[in-house]
């Protein structure tokens, strides 16, 4: 397979982003995650931190309206710019890793798409977030729930099938079972098999 696109969806705290970064390194591919924010920042004249607030965020239904496919919501327009960006990259024949952004659905028509969804046990996710963000257990749990709720609303607004629905992904993996390192090894083998096939 000359082109490979690895799409990584993830629950917050499951280590999905780290897994995506490591896969990009192992396959020597560019990764589009924060890079997309910089790209949109350069295009819009907004700062990266302003965009980060609106990135993968659902729009407010009360303050936005859609007319013939056009929306006044900045969240919607940023999402659309990101979808167009990854689509153009895919159409150009480039191989890459992309984190989130409904990429498993937006790039579904590309045979070279390998879509993964990383989940984790709540306990391990809380431990990870407590360590990363220096939070207590309760705050970490709330933070995870908040972030996942936001991602879910964002995804389900832009895509018909629900976030995390196994029918959307080639593989759904619980990173708490093997640990992050071994999950990466396992996924590397799977992707290699896909590329060979």
């Amino acid at each position: 397979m000359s082109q490979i696109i690895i799409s990584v969806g993830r629950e917050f705290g499951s280590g999905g982003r780290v897994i995506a970064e490591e896969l990009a390194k192992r396959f020597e591919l560019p990764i589009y995650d924060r890079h997309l924010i910089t790209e949109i920042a350069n295009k819009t004249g907004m700062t990266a931190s302003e965009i980060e607030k609106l990135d993968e965020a659902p729009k407010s239904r009360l303050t936005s309206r859609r007319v013939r496919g056009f929306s006044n919501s900045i969240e919607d327009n940023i999402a659309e710019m990101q979808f167009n960006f990854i689509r153009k990259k895919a159409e150009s024949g480039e191989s890459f890793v992309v984190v989130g952004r409904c990429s498993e659905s937006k790039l579904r028509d590309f045979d070279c798409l390998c879509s993964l969804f990383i989940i984790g046990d709540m306990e391990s996710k809380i431990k990870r977030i407590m360590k990363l963000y220096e939070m207590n257990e309760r705050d970490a749990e709330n933070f995870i729930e908040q972030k996942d709720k936001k991602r879910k609303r964002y995804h389900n607004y832009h895509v018909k099938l629900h976030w995390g629905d196994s029918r959307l992904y080639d593989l759904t993996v619980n990173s708490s079972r093997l640990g992050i390192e071994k999950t990466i090894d396992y996924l590397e083998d799977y992707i290699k098999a896909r590329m060979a096939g």
Partner: protein
Amino acid sequence: MLSAQIFAVIIFVAMFLMIVLDKIERHIVTLGCGLLTLIVVFGICMRNGKAVWDTLALGNFIKSDFWYQVTESESKGINWATIIFIAGMMVMVEGMAKAGFFRWLCMKIAFLVKCRTIPIFITFMLMSAILSMFIDSITVILFLAAVTIELAQLLKFNPVPMILSEIFCANLGGSATMCGDPPNIIVGTSLGFSFFDFLSNTGVCAGICLIFTIIFFYLVFKKELAPKENETIDMSKLPSPSSAITNKKDFIISSVIFGLAVILLVTHSMTHLTVATIGLFIAVITLVTAGKNALELIKKVDYKTVLFFIGLFVVVGGLEETGILEYIADFIGDISGGNAHVMIAIILWVSAVASAFVDNIPFAATMVPVIQSLAVSTGVPIDTLAWTLSIGTDIGGSATPIGASANVVGTSVAAKNGYPVSWGKYCAKLAPATVIVLAISTAYIFMRYL
């Protein structure tokens, strides 16, 4: 009857909420709610087949005054004249867009003013208002905003002030004529007004307001749009207007059809052709001249909007047949204490505030039977109430980014090209402009009609 009234209100409120929440496509919402109105309100609660037939209004098609109208008449139920006219104009506009008409017009005007920022700013506002008198504001803004951004990138200015001003003027221009904004078509066809009736009443008001609007936006935005010192414009770098024309023959044909549509609309009170006839004629002539491209034009028509209207009229018909709208009219009559000034102010400002946040089309469709009842019960002339309703719904929509379709399309085109417009940025300039224009309109109506 009580159960029918309760269900009619529940269905209407549910429809409005679902339109606002935007979870289900709005044409599916209105069609679903329309079907419920026919089955539950008319069928189960009222057991009234005549109400169903009156609301569907299918008999209108075989009536001669639906196509050729000598005396003014009012319509009830589904307003097929509005639907046919809007669909017909959509076909014409698709033909014009395909031929490159709008882009050519924008580039031509920019070249005529030698691509200087402030003259472009003023002429584009005027063009937005004038085009919106005949064409739907979505199409006008779609092309104007795109060309504004293109010019902004070449001439290095911020396009947002210009796009915001164009949006405001498109809504203002739309209020000037019967076909400028969907609420006006609904008001005009429901109450039997002509194009010229609108032009000589709301049109005069819109003209006065446009002068104030241009002055206001010039004062507000002149700093942002002022050319940098010693900056020269190299017009050779800009795409020429003729490059916008995709096919010369199609361009000429679409321009002639547009001219014909304008003439037919302006003279329809003399020719007695109804807007339904004009819409159908324009659509047929566009499709015939399009030849093998006819199917492509039909496919591009926004059929969802047409379906949205059909469902909407049925739901409003439910409120009308059950007498709910008469209660609303009585309520407005009571709180105004029979004082025409208070009544006009209530209709104008409530319509404006409502239209700033919710779709003005269902609002106008609901309010038409209300003002009909008000005219009967209070003796205030129906035309005064009609102009008030039209101005309120058309102008109020400019105040927020979601108030009118042109606002959504304009801000979306800007955002997609790297110029996001937040609620704050939008309302800071356009909400005061809306209040100023509404104040002028209130004074105009008071002085001219009361």
